């Protein structure tokens, strides 16, 4: 099952099922495999360690 993580600033949700195609992370790209400095692809001011697991 894919996991979802939310940006604490803008509410963007990283859904592993969808990935972020535009940034080069295709669907089913695992959260664990994202780099530590992965920025929120919407607001760009929060990074991976700031995200909260929401589902």
């Amino acid at each position, binding site marked *: 099952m894919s996991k979802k993580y939310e940006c604490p600033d*803008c509410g963007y949700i990283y859904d592993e099922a969808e990935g972020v195609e535009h940034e080069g992370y295709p669907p089913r790209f695992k959260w664990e495999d994202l780099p530590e400095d992965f920025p929120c692809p919407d607001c760009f001011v*929060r990074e991976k360690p700031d995200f909260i697991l929401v589902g």
Partner: protein
Amino acid sequence: MTSLVEQLDVTTTSPNPANNGKNSVKINAWIKSKRYWYWLSLLLPSVPAASAYLAVQSGQGIWLWFTLVMMYAILPVADYIFGTDDANPDDELVNKIKDERYYVYIMYCTTAMHWIALVSMAYVVSHYDWSWLSILGGALSAGVTNGLGLVAAHEMGHKVKDKTQSFCAKLVLACSGYGHFCIEHNKGHHKDVATPEDPASSKFGESIYKFVKREIPGAFRRAWGLELTRLHRRGKSEWSLDNEIIQTFLMTAVAYTLMLAYFGSVMIPFLAIASTYGWWQLTCANYVEHYGLLRQKKENGRYERCQPHHSWNSNHKVSNLITLHLQRHSDHHAHPTRSYQVLRDYDDVPSLPSGYPTMFVLAMIPSAWRAVMDHRVVDWAGGDMNKVNIDPDQTEQVFKRFHQPEVVNNAA
């Protein structure tokens, strides 16, 4: 979702409460009427066409300078006369207007108006007989408008999920050939803001003429690097049409070539001046927005996150309507995706004594800038210059002149 965001908002500074304890009926009426006042953001981009028309009608080339007069004389006076606007919309109004398309349509009209400004001025400059001085005025006027175009691109460029707004951001960036702006600004400047690593944050003691030599090449390099990394991750070359910097530069190349073909060789100096003066406007904005402010490094090696007190704020009413609340910069950097109509004023954040038009003039006179701003930075840092982003060439002099160890020790 919103509640989670709010729960986690540990910002130490809070926006001032809606209405700020003042006459709420009057304040609410003002905030509601602002939806119409935002059309004022189209005023400056419409000045080149209008003043070019007046120049043709009167035969007086001096009119081609009028946009500069507007920017550097009329707007500062208007800011002085009409003062500040510390009214914030309440939560109910924020929820009602934050996603309203009406506010986006203003941006689309602005995009069109920027192209009308550039092409109409180019047409008038090239089709009538003007002195070189008048042509210079026309080119600088187009440059002032191009600078404001970057403000429009800034607003739309932050809405990365909205394809139409992202496209319009590129269209308006193409006016001045600053196609790398959105990438550089969103992914670069917002990440590094108020740190020594940011080429778009000015340092204490650094004049704007020194800053620009670091800012323009540094910003381009950072944008190109970010786009290259993104494309390589997708298995693509940076030299492809998927490169968003190249996409926007191509729009500029097509438009400039057409103007050169139809309007003649005067377009070479005209467009060179109009575009670089547009970049200069951005340099001025970057210079005034974070001068001297520094985010502290945490034990884990990461900088503390950007908070409202890491940006210089200005609440001057007229220039905020012209720049779509860009001057409410503290809230913008703390929450970059907030739309202009819901950006808030904060109490207790570093504040500029006037709006951007006045501050740009001051920035261009380094001694005046430092007389006005240096003591504000020192106050912000509580006399502790270790907390200030200082030009490394001047660290010793700055400490000697401004550091107040006795104040720092007393506070400790």
